[in-house]
């Protein structure tokens, strides 16, 4: 019985490549990993947004309207709905002049109870220290 911790670190801008979208879909896949593992073994994923990556969290993305594709915001919401640990770097939000009002902080409208955490970079560093593996996207 063991739990392995994966820290996904999203540092890239959304949409130009699939990197940030795939980070989220892979992190979410940790929830169905038990079929491959022994009883009690777990893989636990968290997602941290740093640098340009915090722009993935902007509210009101309209990818479905314009391009017929799900938004990164939607994936981020799903990760909160599934009670994933989500960290957003405060220093980087500050740099871009963004506040909690501008970004996706919860998935309440779809029944999620977990909130995103705006934290100092030091907390994200701790998340990386504590992780078994770090996956930068």
């Amino acid at each position, binding site marked *: 019985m063991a739990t392995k911790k994966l820290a996904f670190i999203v540092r890239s*801008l*959304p*949409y*130009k490549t699939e990197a940030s979208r795939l980070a989220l879909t892979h992190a979410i896949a940790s929830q169905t990993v038990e079929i491959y593992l022994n009883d009690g073994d777990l893989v636990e994923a968290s997602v941290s947004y740093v640098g*340009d990556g915090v*722009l993935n969290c*902007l*509210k*009101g*993305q*309209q*990818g479905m*309207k*314009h*391009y017929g594709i799900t*938004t990164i*915001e939607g994936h981020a919401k799903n990760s909160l709905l599934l009670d994933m640990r989500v960290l957003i770097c405060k220093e980087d939000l500050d*740099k*871009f*002049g963004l506040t909690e009002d501008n970004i996706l902080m919860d998935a309440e409208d779809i029944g999620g109870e977990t909130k995103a955490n705006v934290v100092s970079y030091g907390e994200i560093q701790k998340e990386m220290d504590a992780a078994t593996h770090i996956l930068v996207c």
Partner: protein
Amino acid sequence: MKLAVLMSDYRNGIDMIDRLSAESLGIILVGNGVYHAAVKEGGKTSSLLDKKANFYALTEDFETRGITAANLDSRVKAVNYGDVVDIIFNDYEKVVWI
């Protein structure tokens, strides 16, 4: 020459645009280039907007990224795909993608 630049990147390519000289220059922000129109870093707007040029940003692309027309810098005009076609054909002679 009259040159339209489709700027698709946020972190690279400004050096290329800085050097370009054209009697008439249009910069159309598309893809991740739209962040130049709306994002401030450390309180400052993108240095790209200081270039002497006409600025446009593609509505489909900034809205996809969670930016609204109200967020755009006053120097930047919101346009759609049809407008981009007209701008390229009517207002400029050449077009490049960066």
